[in-house]
């Protein structure tokens, strides 16, 4: 009798185990679309017999495992920053690229119009209208340079605003990691299931690595310590360390600091690194090239203009306000106020004779003058090189992003092949546990029937 009752108890345990198996399958299916979810596997163990007349005590649930590969997680955290960096560069530069305008409809067109005006003046050196045109086209060209600097500066400001936003997101994520560290450590200590927390932990670190490259060190209590740059801590156990942004004048662009140390120069990847690269290196490089063109234009025009004579027979003034230095020349480019106010001060003659047009011809011919880069390029060609540089930077960033994205997708596929939920696999699990449950139930019925037979014999 006791054996039959023992079998009933064993079957009840088995039924519970198979029901639990179904429960785990249900959990996996429910999370098929949950980002970062690692599939769960239930572990069963056979219970040994307690006497020679006992085949065994059935099955018990040993636990539920989350299937994950820490190495693949780490690999993902290492690959994501490079992709995010190139993506951020490509996005930010596409704004700068638009700012540069189309070929033949930007600074190059303004340069052509300016030299055309000198050409028209050379045809008719005593014409007031032609002089006025030279001044107007000079002002349009100067405005073109200044607007271009403004647009590029705006693109830098946009990158800076995004840097601030990214830092806020980084700080929110590090706070969450620290909080998860606490929960995981507490869960491990009291023996509760922390797999869901660990999934979330990995997902948060993945999100963080898209913003900034991180070094992740596993803790004994199950959590993670996270550092950036030259080992600057972001999360140590339960503590998170914020990245602070400080606006520095006159540009108002922010510098980043961790624990009071400036780490701006230490961030070389991730979306943050990409935005910093655009803000501090790429766009300033374009502005610097623009400054070189503006400086060469102003000095070359001024040199010729000052050696010439205006309509009154007086020596020419500087046509453009003389630039103090190459840096800032584009932003400060302007037609000399005295010339702008009185077009007769436009100097077209190489002699005091106002009918002479030699200087105007010389200035018109400056369009072909190789005055840039040590006498190797014209002003137009210098602008073309700037367009080429910006175009290449954007193109390279896009191509690099595509390549990096492929790598990230490959690693994600590898990670999914270990941790991802396969619906076919889960369907097989459903059948497996359902059939096992049915068989156990049938076994229970059989034992019950045997027990009934025995009880009937006793009652007779």
């Amino acid at each position: 009798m006791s054996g039959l009752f023992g079998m009933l108890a064993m079957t009840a345990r088995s039924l519970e185990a198979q029901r639990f198996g179904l429960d785990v399958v249900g959990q996996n299916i429910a999370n098929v679309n949950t980002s970062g979810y690692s599939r769960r596997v239930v572990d069963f163990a056979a219970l040994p017999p307690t006497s020679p007349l006992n085949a065994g005590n059935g099955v018990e649930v040993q636990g539920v495992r989350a299937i994950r590969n820490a190495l693949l997680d780490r690999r993902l955290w290492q690959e994501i920053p490079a992709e995010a960096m190139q993506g951020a560069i490509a996005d930010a530069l596409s704004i700068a690229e638009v700012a540069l305008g189309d070929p033949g409809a930007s600074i190059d067109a303004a340069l052509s119009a300016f030299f055309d005006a000198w050409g028209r003046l050379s045809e008719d050196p005593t014409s007031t209208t032609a002089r006025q045109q030279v001044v107007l086209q000079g002002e349009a060209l100067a405005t073109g340079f200044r607007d271009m600097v403004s647009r590029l500066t705006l693109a830098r400001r946009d990158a800076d605003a995004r840097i601030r936003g990214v830092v806020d997101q980084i700080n929110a994520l590090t706070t969450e990691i620290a909080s998860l560290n606490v929960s995981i450590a507490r869960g491990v200590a009291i023996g509760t299931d922390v797999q869901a927390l660990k999934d979330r932990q990995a997902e948060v670190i993945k999100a963080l690595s898209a913003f900034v490259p991180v070094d992740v060190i596993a803790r004994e209590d199950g959590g993670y310590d996270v550092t950036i740059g030259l080992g600057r801590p972001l999360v140590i156990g339960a503590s998170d360390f914020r990245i602070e942004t400080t606006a520095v004048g006159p540009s108002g662009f922010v510098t980043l600091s961790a624990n009071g140390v400036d780490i701006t120069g230490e961030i070389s990847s991730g979306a943050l690194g990409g935005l910093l690269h655009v803000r501090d290196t790429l766009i300033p490089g374009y502005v610097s090239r623009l400054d070189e063109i503006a400086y060469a234009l102003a000095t070359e025009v001024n040199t010729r203009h000052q050696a010439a004579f205006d309509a009154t027979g007086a020596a020419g003034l500087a046509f453009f306000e003389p630039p103090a230095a190459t840096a800032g020349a584009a932003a400060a480019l302007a037609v000399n106020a005295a010339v702008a106010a009185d077009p007769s001060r436009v100097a077209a003659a190489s002699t005091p004779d106002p009918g002479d047009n030699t200087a105007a011809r010389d200035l018109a011919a400056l369009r072909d003058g190789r005055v840039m880069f040590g006498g190797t390029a014209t002003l137009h060609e210098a602008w073309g090189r700037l367009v080429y540089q910006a175009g290449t930077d954007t193109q390279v960033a896009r191509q690099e992003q595509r390549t990096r994205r492929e790598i990230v997708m490959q690693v994600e596929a590898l990670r999914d092949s270990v941790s991802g939920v396969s619906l076919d696999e889960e369907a097989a699990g459903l059948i497996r546990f359902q059939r096992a449950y049915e068989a156990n139930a049938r076994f229970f019925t059989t034992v019950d029937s045997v027990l009934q037979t025995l009880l009937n014999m006793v009652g007779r």
Partner: protein
Amino acid sequence: MTRISFQTEFRHALADIERTALDLMRRQREVSSGRRLQAPSDDPTAAAAAVTEHGALAALDRYEQAGSSVEARLRLVDTVLSDIIEQLTHAQAVATGALGDTPTQAQREAAAMELAAIRDALFADLNTSFRGVYVFAGTASTTAPFVRNADGTVGAYQGNASTIAVDIDRGRAVRVTFDGGALVQGSDPQDVFGILETLRADVLAGNTPAIEQGIAALKRVFDRAVQLQSEVGADQKALEIGAVRLTTEKLAARKRLSTLEDANMAEAISAMNRAETAYSAALGAAARLTRPSLMDYLR
């Protein structure tokens, strides 16, 4: 064995849709705008080359405009020089008619009046201006090169010996104003107006040797005018040839620019069709993610 998870399939399908949709959008824009270059990053080398070509095209346009303006001026100068030559020829004929003892006093007076009329015509010719610029005043182009004195005679040349040249191409300039002094006087002691005044007096006086000297002096002016007209003619011819060359260069530059910037429509449409097919295929493949699964067989 590699496990295939739903997430992997979904992620790859989505990435393929995004990639092909982006390509299709780019191709569509290429076809609808007719432009291959939407941004410098589409082809940085072509974008930089397009900047240079636009600059070259603008310069060619400018030289073409300058050539057109110069051509109009030279046509005027040519007409004026033709008139000057005609007047000088007529003056020589009138003076020749007054030679010897045959002409009567009345005929001499008529000849002198004719010479005065020729002087006035030459005065008007040499003070010709084009849009306010005196063409025979050198670079003193806003000053009338010849002014009439109170007694009706013409004063000395007011212009200068420099000339205004206009660039009609790289390294090719053409004169548009001329040294009226060199034309009317050259190395002679008198200018054409002085010669005509003296000749008029000599004709009235019937001074045959002096008239002959006057005719010889007019001949020298005539020669200089003919020389100048042939120079102007040569410049006009050069302009004509230059205009043809500029047009050819512009066409070539436009063609190069078109190759750099414009879409090859046949190629672009074909590429768009391919992109559309790829996009449809990616969408179709993604739709097949709901393929039969073991789940379908569970009852």
